[in-house]
């Protein structure tokens, strides 16, 4: 199956770039690797026949959020890794916390029936028509409430950005 190979390629790419986000010495490389991770995940959405989700994922994450990240990193000129080496107890705490999070995740996902979707291309839920119908019929109120939340965030950002006193 051709799409299986694409799946493995995208998964490998996503995992590799996610690890490289952590391992990169320069912050700007981390940002670009994170962008690559988002593209790989967008590819996964397309494999699941969710074109709308894939494109929106790329517009929002790669097109807007990561560009702002890139902006900030560039303007602060964080060229070299200037973080001081962490003391040993911080490292130990980080390892313990990470292992515990991993345990929780394993415990949660053990209960799930992880079956393979046999015909992912036949699922229509990720197409824009179906998604719109579900959002505006079944989840009308949560959808509208979350849009009000966005509006509030926008007004708040403008308020914070204003220089003169109100």
């Amino acid at each position, binding site marked *: 199956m051709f799409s299986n190979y694409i799946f493995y390629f995208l998964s490998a790419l996503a995992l590799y770039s996610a690890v490289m986000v952590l391992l990169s010495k320069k912050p700007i490389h981390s940002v670009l690797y994170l962008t690559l991770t988002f593209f790989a995940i967008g590819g996964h959405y397309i494999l699941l026949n969710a*074109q*709308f989700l894939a494109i929106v994922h*790329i517009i929002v994450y*790669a*097109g807007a959020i990561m*560009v702002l990240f*890139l*902006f900030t990193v560039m303007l602060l000129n964080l060229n070299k890794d200037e973080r001081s080496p962490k003391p040993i107890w911080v490292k130990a705490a980080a390892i313990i916390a990470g292992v515990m999070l991993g345990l929780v995740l394993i415990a949660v996902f053990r209960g799930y029936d992880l079956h393979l979707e046999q015909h992912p291309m036949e699922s229509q839920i990720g197409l*824009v028509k179906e998604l719109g119908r579900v959002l505006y019929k079944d989840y009308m109120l949560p959808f509208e409430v979350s849009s009000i939340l966005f509006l509030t965030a926008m007004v708040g950002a403008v308020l914070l950005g204003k220089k003169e006193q109100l």
Partner: protein
Amino acid sequence: MLIFKILLASAVLVMSLVVAMYSTLIERKMAGFFQDRFGPDRAGPWGLLQPLADGIKLFFKEEFMPNTADKLLYILGPSLTMLIACLTSAVIPWGPDIIIRGQAYSLQMADVNIGILYIFAIVSIGVYGIMIGGWASNNKYALLGAVRASSQMISYELAMSLSIITIVMMSGSLSMRDIVNQQQGFNWNIWYQPLGFIIFLICAFAETNRSPFDLPECETELVGGYHTEYSSMKLGFYLFSEYINMFISGAVMATLFLGGYHFPFIDKLGLSPNAFAFVSFLVLFAKITFFGFIFMWVRWTLPRFRYDQLMRLGWKALIPLAILNVLITGVVILLNQK
């Protein structure tokens, strides 16, 4: 079918490259005309070989890389710009179906049902090439140019998206083919959305970094802008992708607002399907050429904006106008339904 798609993709790619190549010549000829001089006329008749000469010159120039540059990103920058410039053409319907041996072939590479969102996505990741290149050069002017370019593109993206939303509201579809098919004959979107068209046109100038919005490469302030440190074919890629972007944005505007490949009295010609497809393609091409002319006309007529003027125009004029346009369109659609 797959072979046809590959052939079509190659043909569109070659067409974009050749058109971009000759746009440089036409641009210089027009600049000559506007400034009352001849323009290039030494290489071949009417300077027809000039683009080739330019290309050869760029290839043989010294390949220079600054010592302090981030080597990988320095090369990635122009490559990414070129790649992204070539991506948009995938969802543009270049003509009606052609028929080969009784089977219909679509002259659109991918008829995805989210064609417009695909264009948004490409436009929004178009910033990366310039930003990466400008930052990796490790030069103050290049960084300033890159920051200018990206803040300008982010700002004008909003008004651009808002002006397309009205088209989506009217057609009720995100597919480029549906939008074109609803503009049969002379029923073009521009007659219903003149304000949206003007906003989109202005934003297209800003998104392609063309004059009067060419502040990212403003020679009088920033030496060369984001490509100050680039030379040889890497510089060529940056300059060339601008012309590809012009061509493609002309195609997008023709598709969304000027009816794509439709023209008046389309059904009165009585041609065979293939000849009809060819004529339709020529019509689309003529519309794109018209937009190319507007791009050049404006460049050699208007002076450059100041940076605060550019931002004020984008945020305080275009975005409110675009929102107003969305509101009016919504009200009119509601009233028509009753």
